[in-house]
């Protein structure tokens, strides 16, 4: 368990044991397996790639081939305790609709994403004048699947707009360490390389 990605481990710790979880864009099922083993959850997944789904099925996971943008609408209200979107929201066509669907399907949503406000990214645009390419985001602008980058500040604003309530938020620095909860948003937005948000529905 020691080589588990820090953000996945963080997400797993946010999930109540024994709950029902849907991981949207579950890849090869690493997080689902972690959740099933460590938190004893009823874990389901959606994954776009055929290879990913086949790998998940071979691991004994319940995964459906599908697309976050088109297939979340087919799930009934309140079907899950948590709907997770790990490092995927920036690759969706309609992030707002996806997030709204997540909060409709699940009582809570957990979203992790790369922070486009990180100082190293700002520096690449500001001083070198090109689209940022980093260890975390290695693709060039013309072949990246990531079409809707946002900063932590942008994400917080989207949550406000759709009435989502942040129960917990964590920013991770480049070394994978947590940034102090007392730190102000601007500090997170500058030094957080990625962020994980635990959200719930606000009052309508």
């Amino acid at each position: 368990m020691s080589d588990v990605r820090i953000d996945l481990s963080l997400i797993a710790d946010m999930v109540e044991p024994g709950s029902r979880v849907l991981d949207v864009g579950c890849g090869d099922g690493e997080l689902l397996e972690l959740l099933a083993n460590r938190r004893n959850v009823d874990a389901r997944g959606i994954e776009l790639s055929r290879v990913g789904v086949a790998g998940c099925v071979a691991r004994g996971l319940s995964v459906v081939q599908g697309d976050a943008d088109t297939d979340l609408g087919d799930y009934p209200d309140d079907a899950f305790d948590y709907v997770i979107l790990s490092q995927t929201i920036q690759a969706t066509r309609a992030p707002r609709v996806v997030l709204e669907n997540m909060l409709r399907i699940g009582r809570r949503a957990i979203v992790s994403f790369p922070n486009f406000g990180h100082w190293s990214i700002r520096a690449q645009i500001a001083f070198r004048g090109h689209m940022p390419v980093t260890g975390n985001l290695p693709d060039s602008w013309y072949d990246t699947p990531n079409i809707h980058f946002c900063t932590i500040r942008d994400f917080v604003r989207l949550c406000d707009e759709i009435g989502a309530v942040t129960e917990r938020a964590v920013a991770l620095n480049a070394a994978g360490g947590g940034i102090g909860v007392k730190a102000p948003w601007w500090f997170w937005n500058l030094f957080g390389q990625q962020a994980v948000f635990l959200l719930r529905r606000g009052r309508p």
Partner: protein
Amino acid sequence: MTAATNTTGRENAKAQALRDPLREANEPTSLVARFGPERGLVMDCGVTLAGWQIAYQTYGTLNAARSNAVLVCHALTGDQHVASTNPVTGKAGWWEVLIGPGKPLDTDRFFVICSNVLGGCLGSSGPASNNPATGRPWGLDFPLVTIRDMVRAQAMLIDHLGIESLFAVIGGSMGGMQVLQWASSYPERVFAAMPLATGARHSAQNIAFHEVGRQAVMADPDWREGRYLDADTRPSKGLSVARMGAHITYLSEAALHRKFGRNLQDRDSRTFSFDADFQVESYLRHQGLSFVERFDANSYLYLTRAMDYFDLAADHGGVLARAFAGSKTRFCVASFTSDWLFPTSDSRAIVHALNASGASVSFVELESDKGHDAFLLDEPELFATLRGFIGAAARVRGLA
């Protein structure tokens, strides 16, 4: 493939079949379970079939806990000979690529059962078998069969074998319909379900294709209003045309083009006649002719009708999710990219319903250009998926 052996085998079988064409329909070379009037089969059409039988094959060994049984459901023109030589054609079992010792569905681990469907013609009661009341073939007096009737008959066979719950039910096309019906009718008896290349209802286009096939059979004067067995004739021309038409729907344009293109059959130029100039024509004629040697025309009418009538949602107030309400069964649904008879959208409708009912479901669309028949062929992706799904389910079930 040893063509010579196959041809000899086929000719031997044909010679035997000619001696008594109804032998397999009444006295199958496989196992058979017979039920007397006290264990009649209640059918959807309102008739109770008193005195009926179901023919089946088994492979592997049932474990002491009776927990490793896998029921394989065959498609429209399949039979119980899923992993052993077919007594009528002399050919290998129709799913031998998948089932056997060490194969994806491993008969060293699982007890595999496959039965001939009710209404079929290889030993289960159907229009070609004898009506116990008259001693003559049923013909069109046999009651109309539904997918649910087939599954009821299978459930009585499973009871007869002393098996409380099946580890898995697997099948493609019409077999997949039976898998869905099993999961809906007997959820507590199905641990894992794998419906392949199928739908929860038969589409208008598919009903239309079936109707063309039935009309071809019925237009053959030798059909004789369904009483051809009494008259000792066979509507071979009609059934052959029905099979030719249906066969096209099992393939894809890409597969046909790859296999035949516009190639000519054993000739250098067109003959300016209606002879089978093109390879694809010759191939279809062969498919039609070899089919009539092994299949009963009335059975073909009954089984196509059973598929047409299948609409699982309609049995549950129009809401497919209700068919699986509270289901504890683990599902794995798979479709093929080039299947236009049961396209991926049909499988997705099943998956949506299973999700809505909260059932455990996996779904994958497999890449293949071989059309609907891909589920019967050597498709490594299908095998990997099945191996993974069955292996994981077996671990949960505690099967070694």
